[in-house]
């Protein structure tokens, strides 16, 4: 064949074309339009889980909030300096009486301020309610909810005022009369709101009828769409085949994911076994909100090692503990204080109670709460024992190191200082189970109940206790 002939053959091939196999378009289309539905589902579930975790956190954190009022300073009471203990005690009793008077006067002045603030607040609320009345009827629904909230706040204020009324009766009589007037106005407002609620109920009934008719129309249009879809059943099945192919590719990729990151939070119920001055004490368990961020690495198909950082709260609540205002320089048997407040001495053992009763005429009984906040660093191994299509169950064991960040003690809900002898670093052990649900290919919602043990948050000559903790956590895991 001549050279020119070959060149001609080449030029014929220049316009060479050939129809590609049909499946190539399916692959291209699947890559151009990846499924978005599951992302939406993930977004909805993820948001729901995040909101749930935040709500739990808020509820449990809020339930533990203390009044924040300063502790009543017993330090105002001067301690006896006389060598004669009996004389000293008499002198001190007189000063105690004087000291209490001074405290009462200060408290009354403070109470007067509180009432004035309450009244100002109520007056402001009244003005805002008046403004809300002037809004148009479309906003009535919102106003009803807001006004009801305001009324609830007013009711709470009212309770506060009545609670304090007994103590501040003389000073606050004028203020109370004004408060009663405002309360009467509140009742009137409430009646108006009830009328608004009736109006809103009417709207809701109308909306329901509209919704029902919309539903009927929707069902009719779905039927018509289904009919059209029947005609193109072949196309649909082809699309599904393409999707399944992609799924298998993605599943293979997911199976190869080694790393995971998870955020979890929830309730921790902490119980304690405690002794003070070598005597067991009666304690109540406490609830706290805890949270953790963990990173996991899959050592094998079923075994995962995890570590991370989180917040942990331990402590105890001791009921009916006897205490007295005392000079700790006085020798009270072997008793040292368990809280770093020099003016309160806790008495638990019979020996210490007898010793103190020989020179102190009065003692009090209260509830002592000791709370310790930690940064927790866990190390856990989790083994997958059951694997279904969407659900997984794993069992885990591990340990953790807890670094003390905050140490507080409360007597009858008033902060009195820090617990003495708290360990800056404690170790714990954990056993957990993890029930997972796959929201998307890489995103998993899980529920993790666990049992934890912590060794000696406090260890000194006077007090020792051990904590056990039952956790119920909810979390999200992302694999990558």
């Amino acid at each position, binding site marked *: *064949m001549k050279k020119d002939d070959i060149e001609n053959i080449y030029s014929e091939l220049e316009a060479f074309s050939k129809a590609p196999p049909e499946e190539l378009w399916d692959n291209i289309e699947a890559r151009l339009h990846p499924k978005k539905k599951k992302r939406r589902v993930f977004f909805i579930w993820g948001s729901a889980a995040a909101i749930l975790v935040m709500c739990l956190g808020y509820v449990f954190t809020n339930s533990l909030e203390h009044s924040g009022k300063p502790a009543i300073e017993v330090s105002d009471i001067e301690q006896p300096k006389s060598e004669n203990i009996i004389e000293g005690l008499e002198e001190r009793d007189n000063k105690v009486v004087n000291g209490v008077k001074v405290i009462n006067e200060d408290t009354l002045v403070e109470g007067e301020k509180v009432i004035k603030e309450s009244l100002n607040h109520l007056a402001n609320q009244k003005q805002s309610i008046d403004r809300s009345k002037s809004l148009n009827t479309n906003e009535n629904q919102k106003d009803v909810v807001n006004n009801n909230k305001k009324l609830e706040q007013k009711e709470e204020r009212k309770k506060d005022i009545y609670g304090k009324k007994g103590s501040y009766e003389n000073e606050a009589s004028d203020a109370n009369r004004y408060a009663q007037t405002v309360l009467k106005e509140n009742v009137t407002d409430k009646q108006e709101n009830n009328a608004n609620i009736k109006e809103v109920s009417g709207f809701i009934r109308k909306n329901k009828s509209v919704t029902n008719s919309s539903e009927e129309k929707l069902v009719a249009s779905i039927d018509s769409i289904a009919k059209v879809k029947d005609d193109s059943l072949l196309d649909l099945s082809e699309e599904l085949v393409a999707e399944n192919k992609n799924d298998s590719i993605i599943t293979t990729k997911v199976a190869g994911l080694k790393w995971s990151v998870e955020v979890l939070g929830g309730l921790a119920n902490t119980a304690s076994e405690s002794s003070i001055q070598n005597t067991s004490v009666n304690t109540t368990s406490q609830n706290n909100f805890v949270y953790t961020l963990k990173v996991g690495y899959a050592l094998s198909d079923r075994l995962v090692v995890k570590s991370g950082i989180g917040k942990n709260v331990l402590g105890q609540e001791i009921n009916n503990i006897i205490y007295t205002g005392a000079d700790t320089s006085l020798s009270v048997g072997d008793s040292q204080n368990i809280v770093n407040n020099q003016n309160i001495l806790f008495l638990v053992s019979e020996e210490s109670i007898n010793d103190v009763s020989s020179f102190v005429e009065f003692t009090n009984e209260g509830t002592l709460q000791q709370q310790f906040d930690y940064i927790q660093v866990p190390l856990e191994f989790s083994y997958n024992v059951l694997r279904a299509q969407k659900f997984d169950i794993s069992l885990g064991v591990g340990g953790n190191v807890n670094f003390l960040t905050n140490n507080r003690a409360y007597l009858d809900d008033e902060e009195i200082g820090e617990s003495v002898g708290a360990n800056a670093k404690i170790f714990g052990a954990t056993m957990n189970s993890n029930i997972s649900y796959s929201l998307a290919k890489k995103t998993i919602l899980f529920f993790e109940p666990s049992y934890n043990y912590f060794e000696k948050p406090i260890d000194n000559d006077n007090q020792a206790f051990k904590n056990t903790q039952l956790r119920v956590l909810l979390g999200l895991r992302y694999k990558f």
Partner: protein
Amino acid sequence: MDKELRILIQKCVENDREGQRELYTLLSPALYGICLKYMKNKTEADDVFQDAFIILFQKIGQYKFEGSFEGWAKRIFVNEALEVLRKKQRRLHVAMESSNLNSCIEDEISESDLVVSHSRLLMHIQQLPDNYRMVFNLYVFEGYSHKAIADRLKIAAGTSKSLLSRAKSVLRTKINEELNEKVS
């Protein structure tokens, strides 16, 4: 430009599934032909074809409605094929490779009365070593000059000339052998 093609392109810019399907139907035979010419076998051609079409749909918004759209699309496919071959060469560190693999196109050849069928010629081109095939395709089918090929493939213009000459020589030998077999 054809008004219908303009509308089709606009639909693709808006990521419209039906528009994409229509454009694919319109262009895919010619573009698939390019992939078959540049790549060693059907599997490689399929991969390049899919990847290049994804690039085409992703970049279609960049087309300014200046010049031939088919030419614009063709350049994407040629570039993608060259890129894949370049990566392959780098990976294997092989400048020249023998092509013992049979092309799948061979299976589809029907024994016709044509002296040298397109499919047969395509098979011979596919059996060329990668660097021969690249230079041959760019020079013969795309109309590149040796200087342009040298710039594109980052080789010397002399090397391009040499590779083209060898490619043509190999093809000529194969075609002559084939014809001689038929005559005998």
